[in-house]
């Protein structure tokens, strides 16, 4: 479903991604873990071209997004704004800071893109929005403004908003890092349900228990490269790489002095 090959990205002189290749099968839930600064968030943002990257390509369901290889010359060409926007409809992303539109109600937030970008008729879009709100457990908040909701509620609205575009792939960028601990559970539950329903997802998170429970595959990144990937049980019990072992040991031993 998702294929990233050889992605290289620098911020100025700092090379944040040093040739990352990742593929995700349809229906698979991949969780990316690793220390801060490892490039996890940048990797996610490169998928739907919120960040430009110098080398590499990304394809979703076989269709390139962001850059394509020109068949005649073989060089890398940036796609037009229109093509990129169309490709972005296939990908849903939920951000750490929810990024809801504060001047719109919850319902308006969810239907804005389907109506204006996909041309879905208002009645149909609103019906779907209400279904999604029920899915994330916020049916009674449709007419509220985001400022009146808790962080966890806003994040669930953000998930519903992304799902309203019927994406083939969902990206989650540390979506619970900004939440109070008591609100984390409801968001992770929603994500777990999505995974069970067969959504293809790439999740960047610090929540190790979520990674262990929900991931079909875990990817460990550090210093801009993928260090190791594998099944959660295998990685948590017997990691192949020393670095991963250190990282997980610190997590396992986190309350020991």
């Amino acid at each position, binding site marked *: 479903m998702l294929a990233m090959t050889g992605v290289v990205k620098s911020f100025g002189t700092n090379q944040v991604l040093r040739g990352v290749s990742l593929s995700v099968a349809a229906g698979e839930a991949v969780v990316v873990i690793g220390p801060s600064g490892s490039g996890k968030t940048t990797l996610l943002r490169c998928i*739907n071209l*919120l960040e430009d990257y110098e080398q590499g390509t990304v394809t979703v369901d076989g269709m390139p997004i962001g850059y394509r290889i020109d068949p005649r010359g073989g060089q890398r060409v940036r796609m037009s704004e229109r093509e990129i926007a169309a490709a972005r409809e296939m*990908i849903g992303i939920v951000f750490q800071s929810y990024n809801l539109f504060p001047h719109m109600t919850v319902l308006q937030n969810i239907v804005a893109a389907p109506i204006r970008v996909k041309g879905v008729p208002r009645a149909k879009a609103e019906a779907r929005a209400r279904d999604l709100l029920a899915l994330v457990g916020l049916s009674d908040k449709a007419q509220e403004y985001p400022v009146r909701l808790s962080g966890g509620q806003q994040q669930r609205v953000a998930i519903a908003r992304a799902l309203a*575009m019927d994406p083939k792939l969902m990206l989650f960028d540390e979506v619970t890092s900004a939440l109070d601990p008591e609100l984390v559970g409801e968001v992770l539950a929603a994500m777990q349900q999505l995974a069970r329903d067969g959504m293809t997802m790439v999740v960047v998170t610090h929540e190790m228990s979520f990674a262990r429970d929900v991931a079909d595959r875990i990817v460990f990144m550090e210093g801009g490269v993928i260090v190791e990937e594998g099944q959660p049980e295998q990685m948590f019990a017997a990691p192949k790489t020393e670095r991963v072992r250190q990282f997980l040991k610190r997590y396992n031993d986190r309350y020991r002095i």
Partner: protein
Amino acid sequence: MMKTFAPLLHSYWYLFRGAGMTLLMAAASVVPATLLGGALALVHVFGRRTARSALQVYLFVVRGIPLLVLLTFVYYLLPLTGIDLPPFWGVVVVMSLYYAAFMSEVFRAGIESLPQAQWDAARSLGMQRHLLLRIIIFPQALRLAAPPFVSLCANLVKATSLVSIVGLWELTMASREVVERTLAPFQIFLGAALIYFCICYTMALYGRFLERRSLVGH
């Protein structure tokens, strides 16, 4: 008490007519200033380098020269160029061009103060530039820009007083005429000040109301 303020009580209606002209002048200037200011803000944020540099020069000049200087010289220059423009419209043109600069900065600040995250979220949903600007960026930017915009409008009203120096008739000129007739400068100018105060303070209160309202949604 009543005796000292008698001159004012006799002439207040004349002053009100002056205030009417003041408001007319201000209103006629605000509209083009706002439209031009909005256009210039877009150039400042989205324009190409040459356009932006030209704009920087324009802003530097306008913000560094007193309005009175511009008004005076246009007043003297206009007859010489042969353009047959009534002084009222000459003043409106100058004030529009002058305040457009300040308004463009206010609008630009509104747009630029929106977090990048709003752009990210909208783009991620597949929105392209025109849609994104129209339903996500501009509504929020205008809400943020509204309080300083109202403040600029109040400044514009006060600035109309300058046209009296080049001989145009509005509230300040009207009060000068009455003072010459009645020789009661204190009372008359105080009355004019009161009228200006009512107009501008109302606008200031509205601006504060807008400011409180814009915080609610954010």
